[in-house]
């Protein structure tokens, strides 16, 4: 898949983008290796069973990294310079879950070429991760 190539002029407040992503146990293992976060809450079935969650959780930052795909590939895509991202982790996500990653443009500055995008990762229609992305649309 190639990144979309939206210009600032083509983007309006209220524009949105979304994609679906299934999270696998392999994703969790790969993220643990990549990030160095091998906390047993994410990597040990036996340990996770002793917690209120009952099974290993997907890393919050693995989910958060999907917002990088959202802005880098979809909205605005190729011209994106990612300046910032807030994150709130609201509900647990587990291996085998499919999540919907979405964003909606809430502000657009012509002078600075900066957009703010409300970003959400939803599981079964409920927000699991929310945040605000700040991106610049390169000329």
């Amino acid at each position, binding site marked *: 898949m190639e990144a979309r190539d939206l210009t600032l002029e083509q983007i309006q407040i209220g524009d949105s983008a979304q994609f679906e992503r299934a999270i696998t146990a392999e994703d969790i293992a790969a993220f643990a290796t990549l990030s160095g976060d091998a906390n047993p809450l994410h990597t040990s079935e036996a340990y996770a069973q002793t917690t209120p969650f009952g099974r290993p959780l997907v890393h919050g930052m693995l989910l958060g990294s999907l917002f990088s795909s959202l802005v880098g590939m979809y909205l605005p895509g190729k011209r994106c310079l990612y*300046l910032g991202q807030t994150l709130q982790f609201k509900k647990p996500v587990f291996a085998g879950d499919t999540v919907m990653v979405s964003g909606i443009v809430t502000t657009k*500055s012509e*002078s*600075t070429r900066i957009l703010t995008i409300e970003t959400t990762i939803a599981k079964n229609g409920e927000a699991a991760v929310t945040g605000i992305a700040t991106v*610049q649309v390169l000329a």
Partner: protein
Amino acid sequence: MKTFNELVVEVLKIPEADIHDDLSSTDVPDWDSMNYLVFISRLEENFNISFTMDEVLQAKNVGDLRKLVEARAKK
């Protein structure tokens, strides 16, 4: 809506007591080129105004930006 100084504190990380109109990028560690643009976009969003690119580039300190906001707010 936040005040101008509240946004200075929040984005440029300057204690409110230290804010004065002569503050510029040379005085403020968090006033880098990208954060400056984020600050401008937060001002636009907060006060529901728009600056021109020339205004953004010509503003040299906190006082210049405060005057721009006040001028827009009067329109």
